[in-house]
């Protein structure tokens, strides 16, 4: 346990120092957040106050939908980047020779990636509320539960993308396909009920749909954990199935890469 905490500290320190030493990138990300929010704000104004999906104003609807969507995609991107960078710089093979199990390394690295993306999500939501006056009605406990369950699913998604990178060396293409599909189906920009019936049914098979829906209930409507139990149960079920499958897939792909000698191929 002590060594796990020590490894986590080392990984967090590495990522923090790298981020701090990329100050210009950090500043540009902040500017990008405000530009994106401004675009959504004026889009909702152009559409007008009559459009209230799910009974909430359109700007807060967009704020939560795009915020959670971005959290998912950026988390998966963080996994992909860390694998690609490790392959390109040659650290991949060296990391695989340390005393730390690959699965442990992935999970610990993900904590660091999620910490960074959680901060970004917090800044995004706070800026939406403070600068663009999005109206919210928060249930903190529900928010916390949705967030934890969402992280489990995002972890699984990130591992799948990392696995694709190790197996096919095509993680970017898979992430692009996943992110555009999720953007379209998950209800981030518009309610999934607006889709044609077959696509709406497909949207119900996408875990991000429930993560966004749950976060809207918790952040915008102040629903309690009990009131949103069905959504939470679905999120938990997705996490319980997807995470072990993703970990198993990663383990198999690493073994296959070791067998074929393709660990550092990209």
């Amino acid at each position, binding site marked *: 346990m002590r*060594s796990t905490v*020590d*490894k986590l*500290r*080392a*990984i967090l*320190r*590495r990522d923090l*120092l*790298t981020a701090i*030493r*990329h100050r210009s990138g950090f500043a540009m990300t902040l500017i990008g957040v405000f530009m994106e929010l401004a675009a959504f704000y004026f889009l909702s104004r152009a559409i007008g106050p009559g459009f209230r999906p799910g009974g909430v104003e359109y700007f807060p609807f967009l704020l939560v939908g795009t915020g959670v969507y971005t959290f998912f995609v950026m988390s998966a991107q963080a996994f992909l980047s860390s694998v690609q960078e490790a392959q390109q*710089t*040659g*650290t991949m*093979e*060296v*990391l*695989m*020779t*340390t*005393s*730390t*199990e690959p699965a442990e*390394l992935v999970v610990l690295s993900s904590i660091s990636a999620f910490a960074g993306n959680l901060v970004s999500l917090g800044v995004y939501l706070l800026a939406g509320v403070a600068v663009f006056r999005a109206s919210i009605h928060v249930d903190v406990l529900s928010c916390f539960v949705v967030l934890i369950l969402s992280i489990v699913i995002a972890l699984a998604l990130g591992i799948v993308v990392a696995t694709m990178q190790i197996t*096919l*060396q*095509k993680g970017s293409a898979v992430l692009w396909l996943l992110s555009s599909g999720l953007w379209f189906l998950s209800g981030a920009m518009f309610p999934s009920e607006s889709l044609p019936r077959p696509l709406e049914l497909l949207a119900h098979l996408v875990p991000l749909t429930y993560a966004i829906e749950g976060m809207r209930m918790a952040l915008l409507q102040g629903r309690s954990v009990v009131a949103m139990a069905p959504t939470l149960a679905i999120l938990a079920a997705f996490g319980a199935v997807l995470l072990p499958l993703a970990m198993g897939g990663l383990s198999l792909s690493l*073994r296959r890469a*070791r*067998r*074929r*000698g393709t*660990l550092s191929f990209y």
Partner: protein
Amino acid sequence: MDRVVFESVRKVFRHHPALFNWMGRERGGETVALENLSFSAPAGQVLVLLGPNGSGKTTALKLISTILLPDAGTVWVDGCDTVKHARRVRQQVGIAVATERSFFPRLSARENLDFFAALDEVPPRDRRARIDSVLRDTGLEEQADTLVMKFSSGMYQRLGIARALVKRPGVLLLDEPTRSLDAGTTAHFWTTVRALAGQPTTILLATHNFAEAATVGDRLLLLRRGRLLADRPVRAGESAEALRSFYFHMTGEVDEAPGAIRRVETLP
């Protein structure tokens, strides 16, 4: 007791054309990297792997470190099968790979070593002293707090050796460790290797440098196209020139270098 044992190990790399390779000319095929390789290395021995490019030296080191898995046969490290007990093997093995830039560029040398030491479960209370010690041994004390993105090739290589040493491995794998080092650092490195062998660490050293093989080696394995051509001791006082002659005699390759160049190449 033998620390590293290869039992009839075979390793084949199968080449699969890239996915969606509609326009390319790449075809499938296979390369036999190691064929029926058997040898053992006891504690405290410096075992030199010599052989032309593509002879299987690096593959053998990667099999010991668990980066690769064998297709047939077994590799044992301290009695542990590298496939079944990979984690226990990795706890024993340190590797300095030929890839120079296998570090995090925006971390300093010390920060990189601290990171890898944590993943190698070096106790935090010992870490600082060990890192200072390996930085001293590899001549990187003055660059300890420099970001490694500013390092030269030789400094990267020294840092790679430092990383392999910081966990104090029972088995140390060195792949062309002095390729980019200057003469002074190379000589100091050879002294360090000999001192480690006395501790006793088992060292497997893949090299093309006959002077290095003659100076630090206790025994040499000569490989060609994945097969073992020779397994013999390096005799006390044996010259680099003698090893060079042995190499060309055994591999059947033609030594085209003029005498003057040969003499220079056998110097550190």
